[in-house]
């Protein structure tokens, strides 16, 4: 683990960013299918839709919602980083861009996750 961290946090941050982008992309794809499937329940009327979303009110699902927020932020900011690089942002700065995207992502995540956790999971 220590070796992996040293390897990917240093010169291989570009590869780590690529792996994160792929993994979060796949997770968002799974979420998208789940989302479309739930919306599809509207065909059965309001009662069927209520039944479909009932499971989403559990605290476990609320935690998964917070995880979804993290996935969306990682994917979006990393996508922004790749776009900047493709548009010609200084390639030498890609490691710094990656660190910035992680730092900014962490702040945005906390700003969204704390209220979500307090209201949805703890019910305050």
């Amino acid at each position, binding site marked *: 683990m220590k070796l992996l961290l040293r390897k990917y946090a240093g010169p291989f941050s570009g590869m780590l960013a*690529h792996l994160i982008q792929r993994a979060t992309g796949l997770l968002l794809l799974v979420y998208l299918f789940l989302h479309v499937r739930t919306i599809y329940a509207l065909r059965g009327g309001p009662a069927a839709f209520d039944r479909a979303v009932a499971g989403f009110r559990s605290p476990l699902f609320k935690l998964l919602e917070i995880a979804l927020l993290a996935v969306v932020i990682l994917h979006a900011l990393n996508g922004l980083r790749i776009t900047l690089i493709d548009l010609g942002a200084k390639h030498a700065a890609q490691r710094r861009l990656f660190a910035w995207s992680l730092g900014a992502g962490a702040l945005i995540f906390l700003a969204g996750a704390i209220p979500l956790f307090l209201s949805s999971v703890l019910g305050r």
Partner: protein
Amino acid sequence: MNSYQVQIRRSSPGHSYVRSYHVTSAERMTVLDALFRIQAEQDSSLAFRCACRVGMCGTCAMSINRVPRLACKTRISALDSPVVTLAPLPNFPVIHDLVVSLEPFFEQWKRIRPALRGSPSDTLAIILPDPDISRKRDCITCGICYAACGVKASHADYLGPAAINRAFLRVHDPRDSARQQRLKILNDEWSGVWRCHTQFNCTALCPKKIDLTETIGRFKRTLLVS
């Protein structure tokens, strides 16, 4: 003096295994020095390749602790591990032990027409050095970028960073007349620059510190507007 366990992936056609050797290393000993010592003192059948021993020829490229590097430029002490794992370069067919065939690398190299195309009078013209691209001329065709590329590992047809870098030098050479032909090859959807996923592995590992991903990015932008 430190003692290291050197694990080498030995290969011969149809047969592959890992063999361990013990080497006592001085502070400045390189992986190539260790290989010579193993060959001289423990196993004369060990096959590896080298030429200049000073990082100029690129012949001794191999996978060192799972990272493609030049054996002559890698000090054992810098690896910061009591176990040193050596294997042939990934993405290349193995000939014997640590010796790989560079044929796939040069097949891609030939595709971008690496030689200067122009009239004899043009090719004799002296061009002013461009600091922007001068570092890109330092490529020693060691194959490390090709071995490190994640895209190359899954797409055999991809040109690879070194060939694209070579094309870059030719396209930006005012004496060259085959710019459009090269750009057409580089613009190929499956094997050209669009295959690059900006993983930066080639840039991170190039022993000559060539920013290969930047080269590929510049081609992408050139092709987009042309």
